[in-house]
Structure formats: structure tokens, C-alpha cells
């Protein structure tokens, strides 16, 4: 794909993300009614859940990219899987930071406590730290193939936790509210705000991950050129 297309896609995703995010904020604060029990604090829920869903999606894609990195032998496919892996891990950790900041703020008002060691919260923190470790490992490994392979293996370890976070409320209960797609949200204005928020955060995720993957691909190309220059100069 040419550089022109790359820029065009990146810009289109960024504009779509910004416009949808503004629409979502309008729906959250001016369309969705105030929830009777929690009042205005319930509005944290929209961005919190949207971020959590996309965090899991980003970590899932990172794990798949890690599996691809380990499974395929073709250098270009490996490089692409590696770029997608690091991009989705970074964006997932960014969304994880949002989830871990907005969650306790919501919980303080909803449950009267900042944190409780219920299954979904504990697993979310663990997965966040797991992918933070993935990024730290990647940062240390640099272009070393073994280090990247270990990081890819680490990302695959996140898959069971991602599954359990998704089904934690259904399987083990916990203080989290009822699952949205099983009737947890019934008011039309709230539904609109919720799904617009999910769409907005999805587009933000896509825009950031795409841009990060492009940067990583260019970095790989530059590193390869430097290595080639070193080889020609006879440097070790």
C-alpha cells in the first residue's frame, strides 16, 4: 500500500473517530436520561464499558497476532503480525488505563468503594498488567527475534483471561451489573448513548492502532536499512 493511501486511511479513521466521539458525548449528556439511583455518575458507565469492550478486543487481536508471529515463517507476515501485536497491545493498555481510572470512580458512587476483589475487576487488572509486561518485554527485546517470540507467547497467555473476563459476571456473579445484551439496558436514550459510545471508542481504537502499526512498520524498515548499512561497513 502506498504512503498516500496510508495517510488517507489514517486521516479518515481519525476524523471518523473524532466526529463519532463528539456525537457520543452529545448522546451521553443530552439524550440519555438521568438514571434514578446513581444520578449523573451513571454517565461514566458509557465510556467505561465501551473502553472495556475495546480493550478486550485489542488484547484479543494482539494474542492472535502473537500466535501468527509464532506460527508463520514468511518474514513479511511475521513482521506484519509483530507490528499489529505491538500496536494493539499499546492501544489495549491505553484503554485499560481508561477502564481502571473510570471504573473505580463509578464504583465509588455505585458500590460505595473504590475497588473490590470480585472476579471481573481482578481479572481485568491482571490482563492489563500482563499486556504491560508484554510491552516492557518488547521494549527490552528491540529487534531481537527470540525476545519478540517470548513476548508473542506472553500475549497468547492472555486469551483465557480475556474469555473469563467476558463471562465472569455470568459464571461467578460479582458486583458488576447485568450483561447489557441480556437486558441490562432498556431505556432507548440510554441504548443510543451506549452503542454510540461503543462505536466511538471502537473508531478511536482503530485509528490509534492503525497509526501505531504504520509507525512500527516504518521503524522495522529503517532498522533493516541500518542493519544492511552496518553489514556493508563490516560492522558486527
Amino acid at each position: 500500500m502506498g504512503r498516500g493511501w496510508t495517510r488517507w486511511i489514517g486521516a479518515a479513521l481519525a476524523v471518523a473517530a473524532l466526529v463519532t466521539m463528539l456525537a457520543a458525548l452529545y448522546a451521553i449528556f443530552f439524550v440519555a436520561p438521568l438514571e434514578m439511583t446513581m444520578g449523573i455518575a451513571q454517565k461514566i458507565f458509557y465510556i467505561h464499558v465501551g473502553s472495556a469492550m475495546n480493550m478486550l478486543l485489542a488484547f484479543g487481536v494482539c494474542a492472535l497476532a502473537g500466535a501468527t508471529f509464532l506460527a508463520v515463517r514468511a518474514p513479511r507476515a511475521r513482521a506484519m503480525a509483530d507490528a499489529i501485536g505491538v500496536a494493539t497491545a499499546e492501544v489495549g493498555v491505553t484503554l485499560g488505563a481508561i477502564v481502571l481510572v473510570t471504573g473505580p470512580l463509578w464504583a465509588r458512587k455505585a458500590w460505595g468503594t473504590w475497588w473490590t476483589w470480585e472476579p471481573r475487576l481482578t481479572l481485568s487488572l491482571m490482563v492489563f498488567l500482563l499486556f504491560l509486561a508484554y510491552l516492557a518485554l518488547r521494549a527490552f527485546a528491540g529487534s531481537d527475534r527470540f525476545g519478540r517470540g517470548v513476548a508473542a507467547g506472553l500475549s497468547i497467555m492472555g486469551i483465557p483471561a480475556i474469555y473469563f473476563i467476558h463471562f465472569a459476571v455470568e459464571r461467578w456473579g460479582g458486583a458488576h451489573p447485568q450483561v447489557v445484551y441480556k437486558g441490562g439496558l432498556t431505556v432507548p436514550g440510554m441504548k443510543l448513548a451506549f452503542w454510540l459510545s461503543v462505536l466511538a471508542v471502537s473508531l478511536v481504537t482503530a485509528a490509534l492502532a492503525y497509526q501505531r502499526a504504520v509507525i512500527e512498520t516504518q521503524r522495522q524498515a529503517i532498522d533493516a536499512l541500518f542493519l544492511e548499512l552496518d553489514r556493508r561497513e563490516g560492522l558486527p
Partner: protein
Amino acid sequence: MRSTRSRVARVLAGLVLAAVASAAVAGTALAQEEPRDKAAAGAWDGSWRAGVDDSARDVVSGETMVVVAYGAVWAILFVYVLRLAADIRGLRRETEDLKRLVAGQGGKPPAS
């Protein structure tokens, strides 16, 4: 020269990430309040209300929580976008270094 510089940068990046991880764990621990009741201290005992303290719900202002939450969302995204911009600037610098190195070898600089 470049490989030493990039290795130092990688080690620094790893240390920063490790510090962030430690801060996240410490922040979570600090967020726990001194338990009023040891039984409701937050340890999950299998009931869906474990750790929930209804008496503390109305102590905090909902408006403050919303402002802090949405402010944090924008701040986190802004910091990440700034980081991406710094990465792009770094790539441009490396491309210029590469061009100079190629020119020094008498070769044709790569198209940017």
C-alpha cells in the same frame, strides 16, 4: 553509535513501563480505603455484594466523579497521541541519519 543509543532508549522505555506497572499496582492498593468492617474489606467471598458499602455511596458528588472520569479519558488519549507524534518525529530523525550515512558511503540516498 546508533545501536548503543537505541539500546539505551529501549532500556529507558522498559524502565518507564516497569515504573508505570508498579504505579498501577500501588495506585490500586492506595485506592483501597481503610476497611470499616473487616468482613466487608473487599475480599470476594462468592457473594455478588462482597465489598459493596451502600452507606458510603452518597458521600461523594456524582458531578465530581463524572468530570474527573471524562477529564481522565481525554488526558490519557491526549498523552498517547502525543507519544505517537513523538514516535513519528523520531522516525523522521532516523530517516535523516540514514540518508546522511548512505551519502557518506557514496551511495544514493533512499527516497523519503
